[in-house]
């Protein structure tokens, strides 16, 4: 079964945000083993896509990997009808989601007074949350961020088998070094552990492949890293 992809974007007058999110899913959609099945923009980006809502399947969990372009701050990211915050009940990966990547500014800020651990409750079976410790930019060549993330995470290795595949964490770092100035800091939060049967589900060197990886659902701990672009 193919890995499925989603793009969520709020333009707010800036079309680059749509290009950024769709670029991730559309590049991979051309590969066998990947299907772009969810694409939602502007007024179709709803809080209930992300937050547990009775009698509703959160659409973000219909896919394995999501690229989202909307605004943010350390405690929330924007949706059309509000925001999704650390005080909401979010269970990424409840059905499927393993990778959530967002351009939202400062979402993964990690400081002594506001630990990025505030996002841990959003990890059900989620593996990686990718974002920024600082603000991220628009308007200076950032539109292909999602395309380059997909290219290094999976596409290049898929079309050129002799190209050594980047891990997910390295591909997020590289995509952002390519599109951002060096005063921006990329960041991620990842879950690692074992699956329910005690098999290792170590996400450190996880790559984006057509095959589903094991989910870290037991013996969990979390790693966060950030660095300058």
């Amino acid at each position: 079964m193919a890995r499925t992809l989603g793009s969520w974007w709020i333009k707010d007058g800036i079309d680059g945000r749509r290009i950024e999110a769709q670029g991730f899913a559309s590049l991979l959609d051309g590969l066998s083993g990947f299907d772009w099945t969810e694409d939602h923009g502007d007024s179709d980006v709803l809080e209930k896509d992300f937050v547990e809502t009775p009698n509703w399947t959160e659409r973000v969990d219909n896919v394995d990997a999501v690229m989202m372009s909307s605004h943010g701050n350390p405690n929330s990211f924007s949706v059309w009808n509000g925001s999704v915050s650390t005080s909401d009940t979010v269970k990424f990966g409840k059905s499927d989601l393993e990778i959530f990547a967002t351009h939202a500014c400062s979402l993964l800020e990690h400081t002594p007074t506001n630990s990025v651990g505030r996002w841990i409750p959003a990890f059900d079976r989620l593996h990686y949350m990718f974002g920024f410790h600082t603000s991220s930019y628009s308007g200076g060549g950032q539109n292909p961020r999602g395309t380059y993330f997909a290219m290094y995470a999976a596409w290049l290795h898929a079309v050129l088998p002799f190209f050594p595949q980047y891990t997910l964490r390295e591909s997020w770092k590289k995509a952002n070094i390519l599109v951002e100035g060096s005063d921006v800091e990329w960041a991620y939060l990842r879950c690692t552990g074992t699956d329910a049967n005690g098999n290792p589900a170590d996400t450190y060197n996880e790559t984006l492949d057509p095959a589903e990886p094991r989910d870290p659902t037991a013996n969990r701990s979390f790693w966060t890293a950030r660095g300058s672009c």
Partner: protein
Amino acid sequence: MALTLKDIDLKTGLPDLPPTIPVFEVSAPTLEERQPGLEQLRDHLRLGELRSIQLDHALIMAGERGEIEYFYASGGVWARDATASREGTNELRRWTDIQESENGEGRRFTLGPETTRRLISQARELLQGAGLIGREIASETVDLDQVAHLTAKGKERERGAGQATVKFSYAVEGLPVRGAGAKTLMFAEPENGSVRFTGAFHTWRILGTPRTITMSPIEKALEVGLLIDPELVAYREAGHKIVITRLDVAYLALPAFMRQSHLFPAFQVEGHVSDGKKGPGFRFARYHHAAPPAAYVAADVYGSYLSVNPDGIAPAGPHRQR
């Protein structure tokens, strides 16, 4: 309707704009010009035999030990020893000379001054030998990736440093050059008490002849981009407060995969929008033009990225430079 300065809560001073600014022609080093440097990088990183393939954005030379990427648009170069990433079990690295400092914004691990000096010197020597560093260096630093290991309840179990990046940044005519296309980086890992370089990224176009463009007073210059930013206008009209925390004048270097024939001035802007009718508040960061298209036309300077484009500074078909 366009914003005025009265619509903005400016937490930083208005920058000084000189009456004129030189706009430099820039060019991308050819693959032939880059070739000796690429070979040196390949040898230093011990990448072995590489196979080449031309993609839309770059020539990729790859083998099982890593790759070199040459970006046609800028002459930029990325090189990686892929074997380095397969080692280790997590992000933490055991640097021997490390210190942690804390300021109002948080904690940060840095290398000690002696290791920092040595690392910069080694990186500079390697890059200069390969012709992969510009003459217009303004600063040189070493940044460490900042790493923390948390329990399932979010309690910090361990923290430390990861990979090191030696960073060279650029300035021209006293103005910093910002954006993704103005940096030279070398990535390094600790190894047996020493340091091993595991990759590099160099993106800096060669400066050519300057042409002078006339700048407007700062209030007018902000009308070119920032004050007509469609998103900020919409939020202000809905009653949100727009706060600017950073407003720098800089030259903007576009990413390595984009064509750029002139180094031009831009505003680098950061700020936040308050909660309000349109939704919760958020932070933002944008680049905006500092000179209108007409100023470039008057100086006989043309480029698709010099047009007025609601998306910011990026080429867009329908937007003409006028």
